[in-house]
């Protein structure tokens, strides 16, 4: 039996980097998230939005139910923000992930990063979304046009045995 191990980071580290992470059950306010990373010293803001698409793996999707192990999802997102903040001084990071039933084109996740310079801001947004997708306990149940529903398993190999 093989087990995956995950790098653990101090959530309440001494760095004091401005960071925020939350699971929300209402539409994400992107402007408010951007405001969380704004500052007079900021010269670049990078925002990543994940949205529900109408087609996945060739099947027509009508919506997605997102669910989360909420307290762990929030602490993992804060940990990711903390780890990424430690890569470059001056980074600010804010993350919100929505749960509940989302329609096509609705925003499921929003990540806002900022820095005095553009490269750290751009790099940080990418690092956060890549980490979020592998280590934050959030799941999606896709609804298809034909009425079928399925849990999405990006790993392919680790899902339930039929």
């Amino acid at each position: 039996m093989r087990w995956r191990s995950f790098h653990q980071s101090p959530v309440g580290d001494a760095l004091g980097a401005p960071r925020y992470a939350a699971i929300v059950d209402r539409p994400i306010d992107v402007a408010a998230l951007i405001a969380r990373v704004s500052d007079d010293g900021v010269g670049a803001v990078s925002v990543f939005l994940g949205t529900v698409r109408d087609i996945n793996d060739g099947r027509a999707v009508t919506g997605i139910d997102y669910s989360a192990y909420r307290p762990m999802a929030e602490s993992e997102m804060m940990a990711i923000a903390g780890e990424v903040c430690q890569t470059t001084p001056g980074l600010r990071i804010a993350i919100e992930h929505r749960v509940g039933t989302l329609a096509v084109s609705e925003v499921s996740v929003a990540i806002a990063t900022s820095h005095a310079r553009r490269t750290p801001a751009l790099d940080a947004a990418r690092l956060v979304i890549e980490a979020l997708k592998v280590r934050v306990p959030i799941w999606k149940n896709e609804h298809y046009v034909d009425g079928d529903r399925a849990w999405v398993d990006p790993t392919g190999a680790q899902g339930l045995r039929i």
Partner: protein
Amino acid sequence: MCYLVRMGIPVLLFASYADAFGAPQVDVPIAAPCQVRALVDAMRALPGGVRLPSSPLVAVNRTWAASTTTIAVGDEVALIPPVAGG
């Protein structure tokens, strides 16, 4: 008075695992302290447990755990299906 004595380790279930076990939480008949791998093995004997993959992810106290992590009495334990956030 009536005391409900919990005879095992409560394990939180989500998404496809909650579907497999038919509940958002199961009490696994094993005594704490024990290792994560022993807990998972005990879960395989429960109704729905045969559907678990070979190496399900486990969190203890909201932190990713290894197979050798020790679960103590009172720990919050969760079995984590493949994540799909974003």
